[in-house]
């Protein structure tokens, strides 16, 4: 470590103090992890690795398995990505490449403002607007015409995996959008001009520079959105239907890891019940940690490539 500010004791004191704060954050994260592990020990001892692949969730019989929740979290997040990525990347392309100057800032600002809305508000909007509209205009017709496909099988209730995925997609669009815009802005000007100079259209220019420069970055943005979607609790709890079951149809209710913890924590009476919920928290913690870590790493390699002018 280099000492920049000489031996001034006040500087030294300042440096040490900030270092304590910085390591304090790391220590807190470690403490959180250690606590999750300690509290889940009874469940880990009782069920072992089978906890992750067991479908039963029966508090009365004290038989717990996390699979329905893991499945619900993954599927609702996947639906969210499926909707959010094309919308967000498309908006980023529009804002950066096509929108007139006077429109850029307001559109980008409003889209990014979506991130500031509290998730319980999203949840309420989901219950009163999104779910009824989806149920009457999309799920009912789809189930009656395409119901023979396992993916769209009825009966239709409203609260469902699809509703959760759609609500999540709106919530993660701002994150994917803003990272995608930054990624698009890193494309070297000379690369765009190369396409134009060969007689490429504006659209061909965008297609080529995205293929040549933006795929890793957009992938990173997607993983960042996934990280948000996996952990989202309140809005999902309000529209997913909260049924601990694994059903192939996206019109059927499901349950997510975050939702089951929020819903059942207060009523978890037995030690094992509580411990099983904490273990679900531990699984979620590890999953989001890995996803965010991967996103950071991908973005870093992309940025260093851009810096080398490739």
């Amino acid at each position, binding site marked *: 470590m280099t000492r920049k500010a000489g031996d001034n004791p006040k500087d030294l004191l300042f440096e040490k103090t900030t270092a304590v704060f910085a390591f304090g954050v790391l220590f807190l994260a470690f403490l959180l992890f250690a606590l999750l592990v300690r509290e889940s020990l009874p469940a880990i001892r009782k069920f072992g690795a089978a906890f992750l692949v067991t479908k039963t969730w029966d508090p009365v019989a004290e038989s717990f398995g996390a699979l329905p929740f893991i499945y619900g979290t993954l599927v609702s997040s996947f639906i969210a990505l499926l909707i959010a990525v094309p919308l967000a990347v498309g908006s980023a392309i529009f804002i950066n490449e096509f929108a007139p100057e006077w429109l850029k800032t307001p559109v980008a600002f409003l889209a990014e403002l979506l991130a500031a809305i509290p998730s319980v508000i999203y949840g309420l909007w989901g219950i009163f607007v999104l779910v009824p509209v989806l149920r009457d205009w999309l799920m009912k017709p789809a189930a009656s015409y395409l119901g023979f496909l396992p993916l769209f099988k009825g009966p239709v209730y409203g609260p469902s995996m699809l509703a959760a995925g759609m609500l999540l997609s709106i919530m993660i669009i701002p994150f994917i959008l803003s990272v995608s815009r930054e990624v698009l802005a890193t494309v070297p000007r000379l690369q765009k001009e*190369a396409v134009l100079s060969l007689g490429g259209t504006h659209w061909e220019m965008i297609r080529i520079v995205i293929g040549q420069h933006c795929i890793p970055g957009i992938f990173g943005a997607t993983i960042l959105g996934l990280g948000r979607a996996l952990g989202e609790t309140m809005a999902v709890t309000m529209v997913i239907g909260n049924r601990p079951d694994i059903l192939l149809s996206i019109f059927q209710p499901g349950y997510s890891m975050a939702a089951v913890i929020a819903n059942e924590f207060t009523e978890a009476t037995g030690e094992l019940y509580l411990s099983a919920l904490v273990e679900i928290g531990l699984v979620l913690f590890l999953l989001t940690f890995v996803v965010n870590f991967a996103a950071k790493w991908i973005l870093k390699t992309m940025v260093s490539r851009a810096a080398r002018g*490739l």
Partner: protein
Amino acid sequence: MENALKVKDLCAWFGNHQVLNNITMDIRRHAVTSVMGPSGCGKSTFIRCLNRMHDLTPGFRVAGEVLFDGRDIYSEKIDPVLLRRKVGMVFQQPNPFPRMSAFENVAVGLKFNGKKRSRSELAEAVEKSLRMAALWDELKDHLDRLGSSLSGGQQQRLCIARALAVEPEVLLMDEPCSALDPVSTAKIEELIEDLSDKYTIVVVTHNMQQAGRISDYVAFFLLGDLIEMDKAARIFTNPADKRTEEYITGRFG
């Protein structure tokens, strides 16, 4: 027709800042015309006007005419996309597409605007372009190498091949050697001379020796004005304007 391009009273502005003042010049068909001058004299801005490369620059505006095939390229009837297929460009920094193979780099322009070509047609066009760019012998067994993995000089010749593949009539080169070593520079200069049999070439350079070696005609720019334009031999031996003489004898610039 003797002239490939006729420029009449061309003025250009970035915002309120005028960078070209009433440029009028004829660019001779199948000859090498060098645009020479000190930094900031408007020479790059000028050749980028010839294929409407400034179209996407906010605040950029031109006045006057640039006639290509007898029509003003800034008139509303001209599609800049089609114009750029006829008036190609090579840039100061080699800019191959980094994640495309050498083959794809050369073929990419042939696939634009919804054109479909068979694999063998593409292969033929790529070989022809790489031969013209004096790169075929070096690359014929390595056509799958990525654009970014080639040396700087090879990248620049790849960019020339890429520009030639779409069969332009005019090739604009904006200081094509300034990022290259002397050996690569010599190769590109040789290439420019060979290509001038079939193509009209406009080269921007601030290197007088280079202008002297490769040019049939030389235009000297200073602070946005065209000071004079003449046959290369005349400019370097007996320039009409005192400022040109001062520049070529190294008294400024």
